[in-house]
């Protein structure tokens, strides 16, 4: 029983990370019906940039730098890979382009930071706290708070500020939003920026408890994609639930089967999603407007 509780608690932190990445998929899908398939690479870049910066600033001061970097990186992805596809209403151009950009970013990272996994300094003590025999790393608590905080902040921005409302309006009806004087192309660029920013943030949240390196993003991005499809691409906190289920399933698999198989549940989930909803992935079936 205690072991089960321990596995569940350990799964929560990584589950929240999946949730945040999936949340990032939602952000761009809402405004443009497109996704950044290099989302995992955005996380990886954020984490590695963070690793470089953290040496100079310490963990907490590094965060704003990484967030700013994420914004910029997302805007670049939109401008280079997505804008033209949206303009020409290309169904698949953005898929190829964002995957290609992801690979480029990964190569770039390998050249700058090398191929090996590296330890990311933890801002908090690395000794676990014990709650009724269940061990929790202080950093895991930060992950959960940080992930939920980030999602709530974005939600608050959308609801309260006039610019956030412009984002929701663009998601509802892009043409009508244009008539209000809203530059909807800019809104889409912004949603990509925000999406990469959340991924970069997830990257520096998770790095102290895992490791960081050029290859950390690919599997995370794919698995979070499955979570986004299941949790709902259009909106809502279904992605948090989906992320937690996947995170916990993974730690269970890792313990009861073998740690070598811990990526399998997420990828099986992805295959299941693809085989049961092949046409509905981006289509009307998966997005129902109010």
């Amino acid at each position, binding site marked *: 029983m205690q072991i089960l509780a321990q596995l569940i608690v350990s799964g929560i932190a990584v589950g929240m990370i999946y949730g945040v990445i999936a949340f990032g998929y939602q952000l761009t899908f809402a405004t443009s019906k497109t996704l950044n398939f290099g989302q995992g690479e955005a996380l990886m870049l954020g984490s590695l940039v963070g690793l470089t910066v953290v040496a100079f600033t310490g963990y907490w001061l590094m965060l704003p730098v990484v967030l700013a970097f994420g914004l910029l990186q997302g805007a670049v992805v939109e401008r280079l890979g997505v804008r033209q596809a949206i303009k020409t209403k290309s169904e698949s151009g953005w898929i190829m382009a964002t995957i290609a950009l992801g690979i480029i970013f990964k190569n770039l990272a390998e050249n700058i930071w090398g191929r090996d996994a590296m330890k990311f300094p933890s801002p908090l003590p690395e000794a676990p706290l014990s709650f009724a025999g269940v061990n929790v790393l202080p950093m895991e608590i930060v992950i959960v708070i940080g992930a939920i905080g980030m999602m709530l902040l974005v939600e608050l921005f959308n609801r309260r500020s*006039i610019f956030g*409302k412009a984002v929701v309006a663009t998601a*509802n009806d892009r*043409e009508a939003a244009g*008539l*209000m*004087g809203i530059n909807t192309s800019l809104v889409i660029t912004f949603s990509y920026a925000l999406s990469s920013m959340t991924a970069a943030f997830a990257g520096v949240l998770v790095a102290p408890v895992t490791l960081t390196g050029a290859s950390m993003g690919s599997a995370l991005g794919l698995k979070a994609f499955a979570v986004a499809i299941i949790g709902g691409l259009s909106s809502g906190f279904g992605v948090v639930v989906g992320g937690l289920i996947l995170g916990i399933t993974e730690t269970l698999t890792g313990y009861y089967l073998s740690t070598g198989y811990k990526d399998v549940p997420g990828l099986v989930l992805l295959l299941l999603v693809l085989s049961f909803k092949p046409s509905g992935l981006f289509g009307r079936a998966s997005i129902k407007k109010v």
Partner: protein
Amino acid sequence: MLKVEKLVAGYGKVEVLHELSLSVPEGKLVTLIGSNGAGKTTTLRALSGMIRPQSGRILLRDADITGLASHEIARRGMAHSPEGRRVFPALSVADNLLLGAFTRLTGTRGRGRGRGDVQRDLGRMFDIFPRLAERREQLAGTLSGGEQQMLAMARALMLSPEVLLLDEPSMGLAPKLVEEVFATIARLKAQRITMLLVEQFAAAALDVADFGYVLENGRLTASGEAATLKNDPAVRAAYLGQAH
């Protein structure tokens, strides 16, 4: 105020409007009537930048706005209440109205009336459309068709427009609501708001308008003072004899 010269526009390779010219003088209400598929909506869409004209010129207060994106045209003071209402369903009535004033709230409005007092205008909209006041926190997607129509008009007015384009504000409404919509339009006219009104109810539109244009297959077939048009035998036979 608004001048259109030899406008050619359409969808893809299909040309819908063939060298259309018209003008809307400041403070006047001009109506554009014509049967289904004549190109009325296409005209308004070209004016507000929802589609890019193939050729011709559109002048707003003597400034050339041809080919600008719709948000740039809105920032120059053109408001468009589009066909099918197009309110933002997931946002509240109040938020829809605030977005109507987006250019003023964000200071992106070029010249003309700037930020002004958006809150005061919001209050004015709730005076003109009391039904919206009762539902200010309700999601626009859950409003009735008539309420959505009022919201679409009010949202366009929140831009504090130089020119207001209205595409069939009476569409799909019960007769009593249609009357209400026309009464509102008359009230806006009394405030000397410059308007271009597209309507199926040709008789009612000509009653309230100063000038009228008749559009047929993308070409103007008649134009003139609304009162004169209304008594034109050809116009009467084609548009005023029928039920709508």
